[in-house]
C-alpha cells in the first residue's frame, strides 16, 4: 500500500507492520534455505569431493589462527587465574580452572569467532562473487542444485570442522596455561594436570562439543545464505560479507548463552 493512501497518524503502524512482515519473510527464506540444504545432505548423491574440499578450506586452513589464538588465550588464562587464585591460596586449582574455562566456553566460542572471521567471510565472498558472475545461475540452468554443490558441503564441513578446531584450541590453550602456570610461575606439573583430571568431567567435554557443533552449523548456514542472496556488484558482496560475520558472531554469543543455561 502506498504511503500516500495511509493517514499520517497510522503511518508509524503501517511502517512497523511492513517491517515485521519483511522480517518474517526473511526468516522464512532463511529457514527454507536450511531445509533445502538438509534435504540435500540426507538424499543422494552427496558431493564427497566438495565436502573434503570444504573441510580443508574451513578447518585445515584455519589451523594456524586457531593454534595462535588458543596458545595466547591459554597463557592469558594461566596468568590471570593464577593471580586471582593465589589471593585465596587456591593456586592448586589453576589446571582445572584453565581447562574448564577453555573446554566449556572459550574453546568453542573463540575458535568459532576466529573461524567465522577467517573462513566464514571468505565463504560469503566466494558465493557472493559466484552469484554476481552468474556461476550459480549456470549451475541452476544445468538442472543441478546449487545448494547441493555449494551449501550442503559447507554446512557439513562446519559440523565436522568446528568441534575439531575447538578441540585443538582447548589442547593448545591447556599447554599455554601450563607454560605460564608451571614453567613461569612455579606451580608443580603434577598439581596442574592432576587436579585437572579430578575436576574435568565427561559432561564438560560434551558441553563444549555440542556448542561447537551448533556453532559450526550456525556460522556456515548464515555465511552461505548471505553469499547466496548477495546484492548487486562489489558493494553487495562487501556488505554481505560484513553482515555475515557480524550476524554469525552475534548468533554464536547468543546461542552460547542459551546452551550454557540449558546444558549441565
Amino acid at each position, binding site marked *: 500500500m502506498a504511503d500516500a493512501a495511509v493517514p499520517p497518524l497510522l503511518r508509524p503502524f503501517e511502517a512497523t507492520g511492513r517491517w515485521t512482515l519483511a522480517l518474517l519473510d526473511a526468516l522464512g527464506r532463511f529457514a527454507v534455505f536450511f531445509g533445502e540444504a538438509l534435504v540435500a545432505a540426507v538424499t543422494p548423491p552427496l558431493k564427497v569431493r566438495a565436502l573434503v574440499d570444504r573441510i580443508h578450506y574451513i578447518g585445515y586452513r584455519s589451523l594456524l589462527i586457531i593454534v595462535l589464538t588458543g596458545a595466547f588465550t591459554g597463557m592469558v588464562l594461566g596468568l590471570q587465574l593464577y593471580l586471582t587464585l593465589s589471593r585465596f591460596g587456591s593456586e592448586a586449582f589453576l589446571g582445572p580452572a584453565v581447562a574448564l574455562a577453555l573446554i566449556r566456553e572459550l574453546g568453542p566460542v573463540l575458535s568459532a569467532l576466529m573461524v567465522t572471521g577467517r573462513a566464514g567471510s571468505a565463504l560469503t565472498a566466494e558465493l557472493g*562473487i559466484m552469484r554476481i558472475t552468474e556461476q550459480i*545461475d549456470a549451475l*541452476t540452468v544445468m538442472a543441478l542444485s546449487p545448494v547441493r554443490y555449494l551449501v550442503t558441503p559447507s554446512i557439513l564441513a562446519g559440523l565436522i570442522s568446528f568441534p575439531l578446531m575447538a578441540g585443538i584450541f582447548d589442547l593448545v590453550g591447556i599447554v599455554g596455561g601450563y607454560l605460564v602456570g608451571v614453567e613461569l610461575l612455579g606451580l608443580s606439573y603434577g598439581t596442574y594436570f592432576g587436579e585437572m583430571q579430578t575436576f574435568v568431567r565427561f559432561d564438560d567435554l560434551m558441553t563444549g562439543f555440542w556448542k561447537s557443533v551448533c556453532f559450526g552449523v550456525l556460522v556456515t548456514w548464515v555465511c552461505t545464505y548471505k553469499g547466496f542472496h548477495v546484492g548487486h556488484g562489489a558493494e553487495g558482496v562487501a556488505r554481505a560479507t560484513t553482515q555475515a560475520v557480524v550476524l554469525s558472531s552475534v548468533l554464536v554469543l547468543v546461542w552460547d548463552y542459551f546452551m550454557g543455561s540449558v546444558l549441565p
Partner: protein
Amino acid sequence: MIEVEGLWKAFGRQVVLRGVDLTVPAGSITVIIGRSGGGKSVLLKHLLGLLRPDAGRVRVGGVELTALRGEALDRVRRRYGVVFQGGALFDSMTCWANVAFPLREKLRLPPAEVAARVAQALEQVGLGGMGHKYPAEISGGMRKRVAIARALVTEPEIVFFDEPTTGLDPILVNTIHGLILSLHRRLGFTAVMVSHEIPEIFEIADRVAMLHDGRIVEVGPPAAIQASTNPVVRGFIRGEPEALAT
C-alpha cells in the same frame, strides 16, 4: 519450439516487460535486439526459468515452463545449453574441468568418454591444449569460447546466448559468430541469442526480434528488419537515439 505469450514483468514499480509475444521456431537462430537496459536479459531469464512472470506464459516444446517447479522444470532445463554474458565459468576449475562438468554431473558419462568429448569440444572452439588453464589465466575472448564449448558439449536441443560477443574486438566478434554458425549447422540446435552487435548479427540470424519499451515491436528475417519502415527499428539499427525517444 519456444512460445512466449503476453509476458509481463515488473521489479517494484519498474515495469520491464509489457506483454511480450515471441515465437522461436525449432532449429532456427533467433536474435533479440534492443537498447541496453531494455529487458532483453530479463526476457532471456524467463526462458531459462530463472524468473517467473507477473502475467503471461512461456512454452517450450509445448510444455508450459512457467507452471513448472523442481524436477519437472529441471527436465526442461536438461535440454538447454546456456552461454552467459560473462561466460560464468567456475573459477575454481580449469577450463578442461569446466567443459567436463556437465558431462560428469548432468549426463554422468564415464571418464574415458568425458575426456574424448572435452578434447573435441575444446578443439572445435580453437582451444585444444589450453584445458589446463584456469579462467583467470585466459583472455575474455577465450573465456567466451570455453563457455560455448561447455554449453554445447552435451549437444543440447536449445542453446541460449546472452550477449556472447559484448566487450570483444571486431575480429573476435566475427570469430565467435562464425563459431556459433558452424556449430549450429553441425548440431542443428535451436538458438536464442541476445545481442546488439549491429550489423554482424544479421549474418547469422534466421530471425531478428526487436524488443523496445517492454514489447516486441517487430520480428522477421534479417533482410526484413534491415528494410523495416518502423521508425524505432530503423533508429536502433542506425544508432539514432532521437528515433527511439518516440
